[in-house]
């Protein structure tokens, strides 16, 4: 053999290592490039998240504060409870609006003209009387006293205080009149204006007034919907995947089903809404606009995602593990539940995370089942009328009032926080199950 290193005489004129070394630089360049591309890809992915987050947070963080005006309100007993019986019903029905207006008027004795007064009153939120009413009903001992009370300001004033309205612009170019700016300036000087934490946002349902609008209704709606959707879609998806991948005979029919499920993932989500409308609402009489029907529709929508990823995960479990279990006499079902499922669980959880994220952010199918709606009351069950976070976001994003811009972003933050929470458990579980073999 002329060439000592060759397995095959004549084929390799040089030693392997020489060939390897000759090409190594190129291969390494490729390796580095590949790795770099990978790092860039991850970096890009993370950068997009950061970018979108920064965008959302920078637009929305101001919504967590709300402008209030401190007014010395006299809670005249004769107005609130003329009979003096402390009867809750009569306390509830009192004219709180008058009390607050009187208090404001005291601050500006010079305003007397009727239309000017009306404009003055409009710096307060229309919801202010109700908030005062709630407060008094909580603590009837306030009746008859005089209190410095933080009264909610109108959304335009809120925007003004937050600097979203340019005080130097021409009067016609802004929502707030010069006169109102004057009043606000005066109140600011007296230290009567303050931005305080916006509890309303977290405790109230939606409203047409930005300052009164809260996310609680949509949040609870999403909570009920997603809980139910998860409870339905995870077992159904995993069960279906398990059956199709591990138990069903492999033939044309199961191929057809596989293709068909892949195809369902590509069906526009609004079509699921049509289906839900026809079947769940039309045929089974499930009530419209409820978390129940939304969850059912979203379940149908997320099932393909969960099934497909679960099947991929099951496929990636090495057959030797199944053989090992079957070999000691485990039944097929035991084999699956004891060995295969735990190993496939990370992929199944990923599918669930993605599916639920999709369901959490989806509006189109809900349109068909009456969830694109204005619903003030916070739902307290699966069959109460409700809306969900993405719908709320969609509706607020489409509202003309300036105040809804920051609330839209704030609502998105809430949605993302919801998503984080939801994913956290799944991610932890996934880490627990993950292993290489």
């Amino acid at each position, binding site marked *: 053999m002329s060439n000592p290193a060759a397995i095959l005489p004549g084929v390799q004129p040089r030693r392997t290592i020489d060939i390897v070394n000759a090409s190594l630089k190129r291969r390494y360049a490729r390796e580095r490039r590949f790795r770099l591309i990978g790092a860039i890809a991850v970096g890009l992915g993370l950068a997009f998240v950061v970018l979108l987050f920064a965008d959302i947070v920078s637009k929305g963080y101001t919504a967590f504060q709300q402008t209030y005006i401190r007014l010395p309100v006299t809670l005249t007993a004769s107005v609130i409870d003329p009979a003096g019986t402390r009867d809750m019903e009569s306390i509830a029905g009192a004219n709180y609006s008058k009390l607050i207006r009187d208090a404001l008027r005291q601050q500006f004795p010079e305003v007397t003209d009727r239309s000017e007064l009306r404009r003055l009153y409009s710096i307060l939120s229309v919801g202010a009387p109700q908030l005062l009413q709630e407060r008094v009903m909580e603590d009837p001992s306030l009746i008859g006293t005089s209190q410095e009370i933080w009264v909610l300001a109108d959304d335009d004033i809120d925007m003004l205080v937050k600097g979203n309205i340019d005080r130097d612009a021409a009067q016609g170019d802004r929502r707030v009149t010069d006169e109102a700016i004057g009043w606000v300036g005066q109140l600011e000087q007296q230290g009567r204006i303050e931005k305080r934490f916006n509890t309303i946002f977290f405790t109230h349902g939606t409203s047409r007034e930005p300052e009164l609008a809260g996310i609680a209704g949509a949040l609870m709606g999403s909570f009920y919907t997603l809980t139910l959707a998860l409870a339905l879609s995870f077992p159904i998806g995993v069960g279906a995947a398990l059956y199709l991948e591990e138990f069903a005979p*492999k033939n044309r029919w199961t191929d057809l089903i596989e293709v068909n499920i892949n195809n369902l993932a590509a069906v526009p989500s609004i079509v699921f809404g049509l289906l839900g409308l026809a079947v769940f609402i039309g045929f089974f009489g499930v009530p419209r606009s409820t978390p129940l029907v939304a969850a059912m529709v979203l379940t149908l929508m997320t099932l393909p995602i969960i099934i497909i990823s679960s099947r991929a995960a099951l496929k990636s479990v090495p*057959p*030797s*593990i*199944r*053989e*090992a*279990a*079957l*070999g*000691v*006499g*485990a*039944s*097929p079902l*035991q084999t699956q539940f*004891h*060995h295969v499922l735990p*190993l496939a669980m990370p992929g199944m959880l990923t599918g669930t995370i993605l599916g639920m994220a999709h369901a959490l952010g989806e509006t189109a199918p809900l349109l068909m089942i009456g969830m694109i709606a204005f619903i003030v009351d916070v739902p307290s069950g699966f069959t109460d009328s409700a809306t969900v976070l993405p719908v709320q976001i969609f509706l607020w994003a489409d509202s003309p009032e300036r105040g809804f811009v920051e609330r839209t972003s704030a609502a998105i933050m809430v949605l993302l926080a919801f998503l984080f929470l939801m994913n956290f458990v799944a991610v932890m579980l996934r880490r627990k199950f993950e*292993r290489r*073999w």
Partner: protein
Amino acid sequence: MVEAIDKATGAMSSAELAGGQHSRATVGDFTAADPRMVCRDVDVWYGSKQAIHGVSLDIGKNEVVSMIGPSGCGKSTFLRSLNRMNDTIVGCRVTGSIQLDGQEIYDKGLDPVPLRARVGMVFQKPNPFPKSIYENVAYGPRIHGLTNNKAELDELVEASLQKAGLWNEVKDRLDQPGTGLSGGQQQRLCIARTIAVSPEVILMDEPCSALDPIATAIVEELIDELRQNFSIAIVTHSMQQAARVSQRTAYFHLGDLIEVGETNHIFTNPQHKLTEDYITGRFG
């Protein structure tokens, strides 16, 4: 090689008559006096490729049958068809008759699960579960409810590991993954896992391939001990081992069962040319 078989087949007709009516090509008596498993005319296909051609063989009570033959001749395939492990391979078909204690194991109604609990298997490639060593061994007893409490289970796990000759090496790390063991340790772990459920028939596919002589001796001792109560079929490449542990030996070649007989008989006095060639190493 094809000619070799043809020649052999020609030279076989007398042996065939002696063997029984089912087999066409096997030399020697493939029946056992007191059979647990009775295989007749077993064919196995992988898709359209036939891997086993009409093999008939019994596995008797309290005996060890060893299967030898060149690599790729179908030993594992045949072994796997004895507890229906071939069911898991897509495209693998088994025909013919295989009976355990008179019961056809490929019967439609037969449940392979208790069958596999009765006919245990040690695979050629060690395949521990990605669980702890303890759990690997305890799994079978757990699902079959063989023990009533933790203490019993601990005892059973220890005994199984002891018998497989692994206890000393792993007793301090029972909670560590079985996949972090050395090759031979994994193999013994799989043996321990199998004997922990005390199957009545044990199929062992080269159980000692990754074992040193000492560990091999321990396993062979185990096999001998198990034989007192159970039946064992073992695939091995070591003719010495076959000679040491088995009462009967079956020689496979290209999917055919060429010859079967008393082990000492086969090794001292093979009937078939192929067997002889193989045993004397004159082959290939």
